[in-house]
């Protein structure tokens, strides 16, 4: 019997970032997991609930854990909110690299990617320190995963900086500038695509910039595992992804 894991998609995972959840499930299944998709659980509260009252975040985190135990999520925002609310969560990237293991991932690769990829970490899975999935300022975990699937990670200045998402509704122009800066930095470093590991980061970079394709890291892994290009739902993206 295959081990069961619970996947918390996050609100955007069931609306604008469906391709992320779809490919995350593909990858988990390929690695031998039975996945329970937690679509009927409520929102983690986002930063906004915490700004209203920190106790909301705590109570929502404990509700989520009570219903589903330790959840895996690919959304760094949800991950951070649940952890900062005192709950238990595992980031998908950490799960794949540290719990499943790179050798297991490597074994499943059918089609090494041979693509220059800018691994964009963002903030919420790196800081504060108590929830960091790797070094808060000099992480390597994303690069390691990319190398395991045959891609070439590109180093770029903005990899651990903010996408602007948290202020996108109060300072939209500033937020947009920040998203543009991230993609520009990746482009200047010679990347062919940017890879994200968070629902909101992906939305910010893909929606507010026009420079290059922005992919969910799970799409890259699923491609390397041999899934066809057509199943990645790239048509949901705002920037065109060419084969």
């Amino acid at each position, binding site marked *: 019997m295959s081990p069961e894991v619970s996947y918390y998609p996050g*609100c*955007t995972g*069931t*609306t*604008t970032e*469906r391709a992320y959840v779809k490919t995350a499930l593909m990858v988990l299944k390929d690695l031998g997991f039975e996945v329970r998709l937690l*679509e*009927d*659980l*409520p*929102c983690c*509260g*986002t*930063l*906004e*609930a*915490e*700004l*209203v*009252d*920190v106790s*909301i975040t705590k*109570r*929502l985190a404990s*509700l989520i854990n009570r*219903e589903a135990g330790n959840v895996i999520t690919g959304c760094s925002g949800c991950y951070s909110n649940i952890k900062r609310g005192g709950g238990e969560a595992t980031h998908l990237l950490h799960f794949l690299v540290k719990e499943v293991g790179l050798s297991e991932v490597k074994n499943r690769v059918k089609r090494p990617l041979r693509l220059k990829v800018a691994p964009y970490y963002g*903030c919420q899975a*790196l*800081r*504060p*320190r108590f929830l960091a999935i790797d070094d*808060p*300022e000099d992480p390597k975990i994303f690069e390691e995963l990319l190398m395991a699937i045959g891609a070439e990670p590109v180093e770029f200045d903005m990899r*651990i*900086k*903010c996408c*602007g998402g*948290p*202020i996108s*509704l*109060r*300072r*939209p122009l*500033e937020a947009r500038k*920040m998203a543009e800066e991230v993609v520009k930095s990746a482009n200047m470093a010679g990347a062919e695509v940017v890879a994200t590991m968070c629902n909101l980061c992906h*939305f910010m970079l893909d*929606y507010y910039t026009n420079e290059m394709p922005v992919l969910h890291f799970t799409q890259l892994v699923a491609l390397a595992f041999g899934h066809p290009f057509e199943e990645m739902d790239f048509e*949901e993206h*705002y920037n065109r992804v060419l084969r």
Partner: protein
Amino acid sequence: MIEEIKSISGQDVNLCYQCGECSSSCQVAGVDGFYPSVLIHRIKLEDPGVLDERKFEVCLHCFLCTVRCPQGISFPDVATALSNIWVKRYGPDRVERAFLKELRERGFINPVRVALSALGLHSFKSLSSKALKLMRASSRSGKVREDLLKEVREIVP
């Protein structure tokens, strides 16, 4: 204000000795005159402008300053505490109201509905082809379980 911040967030701003590491690490330092270290200094001076000017809302909560602070202060948590104090005094701002309404009505956040009620329709004008695609993508079929939605309504004001 110092004690109230401490009781909400556990952060003791009195530990700050104004080295400025937070402000020099900050991606949004200078936006609308926002500097974390300056806000902390003004909190210590009991300056009422700290609340009234709402500069704390510029904080990204990226926690870069937090991991660099030699005194172990987490400025984003100070900003959150200030925001909580504001809400207690004046109620949630329009962005927070949009989120709370979504949470209470559906138990999850529809990003487009939130953006529309927080920013208004005009915010989508400049990116029209992308915006149309976004609107289509934001409808969701699934629902939050009824008993959990009831619980969310007890949690969220």
